[in-house]
C-alpha cells in the first residue's frame, strides 16, 4: 500500500516536471494522425479543403493538412451489384435467392409492348468511375441508379412483344438496357460505369404460367406426332422398296426360265424333227407305241373291246361308278 502511494506521488511529480513535453508530444501525435491517412487498394481518396475539392489521390499512405482538409474514400475498383425482382439471400457455393414478396414482385412485373405482362429479373453490375461526380453531383447515386434501371428496363421491354421478351429477345434487351443506362448515367453525372446488365429469369406471371406450359407441352406433342409419322414412314417405305426389287427379280427369273425352257424345248423338237422327217411313218408309230408302253402299266383298269364293242361302254361306266 505504502509503496504504491509513493509510486503515485513520484508519477505526479514526474508529470509536473515534464508536462510541457508531454503536451507537446500529444499535440504532435494528434497533428501527426490528422496529417496522415491511408487509401485502400480498391479505393480513391477525394480530398476537400474547406469543403472545396482540391485533389484525388490513389491508394497508399497520404498526407493532408490536419483540420483543414477532409478525405472521402470511394471504392472505385469494387464491382457493385443491384438486383431487381429477386434478392440474394445468402451468397455462397450454392447461392440462395428469394423471389417472393411484394417488393420484388412489383419490381419484376412489367408491361410488354403488346400489353401483356412479364416477370423480368435482372442484375446491374457497375462501379464508380468518377469519384468526384459520384460524391458531389447527385444525392444518393446508388438509389438513383436503381430508379433509372427500372425505368430503362421497362422502356426497352415496353417495345417488345411478350413472346420476344420470353424467347428470342433476351440478349438484345440486356444490351439495349446497358447502352441506354450508360447514356443516362452520363446525362445524370452519376459517376458510375455500367459493367454489365444480366437478365436472370424471365417468366410469364405466376397465374398464367400453366397456360404457357401447356403451349410447351403442345409443342412437344406436335413434335411427337410428326416424329411418329416419320418413323412409320421410315419403317414402311424402305421395306416396300426392297419388296419391289424382289418382285422384279422374281419376274427376271421367270423370264430367263421361260426363254431357256422354250429354247431347250425348241432345240429338242428340232432335233427330233430332223430325224422324223427322214422316216415319218415309222418314227411316229414308234413314239406312239413307246408311249403306250410307258403309260399302260401305270393304269388301273384296262378294257379292251372289239370294234363292235362300243355298246358295252355304258355298262362299264356304271360299274366303274
Amino acid at each position, binding site marked *: 500500500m505504502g509503496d504504491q502511494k509513493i509510486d503515485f506521488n513520484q508519477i505526479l511529480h514526474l508529470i509536473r516536471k515534464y508536462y510541457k513535453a508531454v503536451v507537446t508530444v500529444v499535440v504532435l501525435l494528434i497533428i501527426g494522425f490528422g496529417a496522415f491517412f491511408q487509401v485502400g487498394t480498391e479505393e480513391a481518396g477525394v480530398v476537400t479543403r*474547406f469543403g*472545396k475539392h482540391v485533389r484525388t489521390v490513389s491508394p497508399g499512405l497520404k498526407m493532408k493538412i490536419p483540420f483543414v482538409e477532409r478525405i472521402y474514400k470511394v471504392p472505385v475498383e469494387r464491382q457493385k451489384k443491384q438486383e431487381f425482382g429477386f434478392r440474394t439471400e445468402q451468397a455462397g457455393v450454392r447461392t440462395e435467392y428469394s423471389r417472393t414478396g411484394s417488393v420484388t414482385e412489383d419490381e419484376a412485373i412489367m*408491361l*410488354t409492348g*403488346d*400489353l*401483356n*405482362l412479364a416477370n423480368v429479373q435482372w442484375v446491374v453490375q457497375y462501379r464508380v468511375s468518377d469519384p468526384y461526380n459520384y460524391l*458531389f453531383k*447527385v*444525392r444518393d447515386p446508388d438509389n438513383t441508379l436503381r*430508379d433509372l434501371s427500372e425505368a430503362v428496363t*421497362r*422502356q426497352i421491354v415496353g417495345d*417488345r*412483344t411478350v*413472346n*420476344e421478351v420470353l424467347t*428470342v429477345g433476351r440478349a438484345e434487351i440486356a444490351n439495349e438496357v446497358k447502352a441506354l443506362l450508360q447514356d443516362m448515367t452520363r446525362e445524370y*453525372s452519376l459517376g458510375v460505369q455500367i459493367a454489365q446488365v444480366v437478365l436472370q429469369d424471365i417468366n410469364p*406471371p405466376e*397465374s*398464367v404460367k400453366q*397456360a*404457357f406450359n401447356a*403451349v410447351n407441352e*403442345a409443342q412437344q*406433342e406436335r413434335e*411427337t*406426332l410428326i416424329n411418329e*409419322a416419320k418413323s*412409320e*414412314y421410315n419403317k*414402311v417405305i424402305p421395306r*416396300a422398296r426392297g*419388296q*419391289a*426389287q424382289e418382285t422384279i427379280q422374281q*419376274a*427376271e427369273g421367270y*423370264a*430367263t426360265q421361260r*426363254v431357256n*425352257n*422354250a429354247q431347250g424345248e*425348241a432345240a429338242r*423338237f428340232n432335233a*427330233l*424333227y430332223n430325224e422324223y422327217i427322214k422316216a415319218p411313218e415309222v418314227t*411316229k408309230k414308234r*413314239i406312239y407305241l413307246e*408311249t403306250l408302253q*410307258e403309260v399302260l402299266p*401305270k*393304269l388301273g*383298269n384296262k*378294257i*379292251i373291246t372289239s370294234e363292235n364293242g*362300243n355298246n358295252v361302254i355304258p355298262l*362299264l361306266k356304271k360299274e366303274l361308278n
Partner: protein
Amino acid sequence: MMNKRSKLTLITALVIAGIVVLTQSIYIVDETQQVVITQFGRPIGDAVTEPGLKFKTPFVQEANFFEKRYMEWDGDPNQIPTKEKKFIFVDSYARWHITDPLQFYKRLTDERGAQSRLDDIIDGETRDQVASHSLEEVVRNTNRQADTTAKISIMIEDSLAQIEVGRKRIQNMIQEKANEETKDLGIEILDFRFKRINYVEDVRQRVYDRMKSERIRIADKFRSEGEGEASRINGEKERELSQIQSAAYKEAETIKGKADAEATRIYAEAYNKSSRSVELYSFVKSMETFVNTFDTSTTVILSTDSDLYKYLKSME
C-alpha cells in the same frame, strides 16, 4: 499577483471573443452545398455556389445552406385512367436541383416545401398526359418492328401496334410542362420518367385471362399443326407405297410379257416350220400328255381298232 491574474483573464476573454467573432464571420461551403446570405432575414447579394472558405459580417448576417446536387423526387403510385379508360398504376420519379437558391429560399423555404410542390405539379401533369393518351402510347417508346423469328411468334403472327407519341415524348411533355411551373420556384427538373406502370388488380385479372386464352389458342394450333403434319407424312407414305408397289408390278409384268413373247416366238419358229412339223408337234404333245395325265385311277377302254391292239384281232 492580482494584476497578473486579471491580465490572464483579459487575454483569455479576448481569445474567446476572437474565436466567437471568427466563427461568426467565416463559413465553409461544401461541394454539395450552396448558400444564401441573409441579413435579419433579408437576402443579401447573389447566392454562393462556389465551395470553399467564405466570409460574412458576423452576427448580422446568416448563412442558409441549400443542396447543390441533383435530388430525387419519387412519386406515389397513382391510379390513373388512360384515354381508353383502362385503369393503371403509374409510379414515376424525377431528378431535380436548385437552380436559383435565392428564389428557392423565398418561394419554398426548404426541401420539404419543394418536394410537396413537386408532388402537386408532377402528379397533376402526369394525370393529364396519361389520361389524354392510350395505354400503348404510354408503354411503347418507338415503332420498332417486333422480332417474330420465334416459333410461337410465327404461329400467332405477332406484331406491335403503331404508336404516334410514345413513352419518351409523353415523359418529355410532362417534364416540360412541370418545368414551366417550377421556373419561378428556383428549381429545375432534370429528368422525369415512368418507373413502373401496372394494371390495377381487376384489369390485371382480365389481362391474365386474355393471356391464358391466347396461349390455349397457340397450344391448340400447335396440336392441330402436329396432327396435320402427321397426316401429310402418312399420306405421302401411302402414295409412295402404292407408287413403289405398282411400279414394281408394272416392271415385273413387262419383263414376264417380253419373256412370254420371246418363248412364243421360239416355239413358233420351231414348231411352225412346215405342215409336218406342226403334225409332229401335236403328235408329240399328245403323247406327252398321256404320260403326264394318266395314272392308276385312270380307266382306258381300248378298241381293237386302235393301232396298238389291232394285231390282237388279226395280223393284217
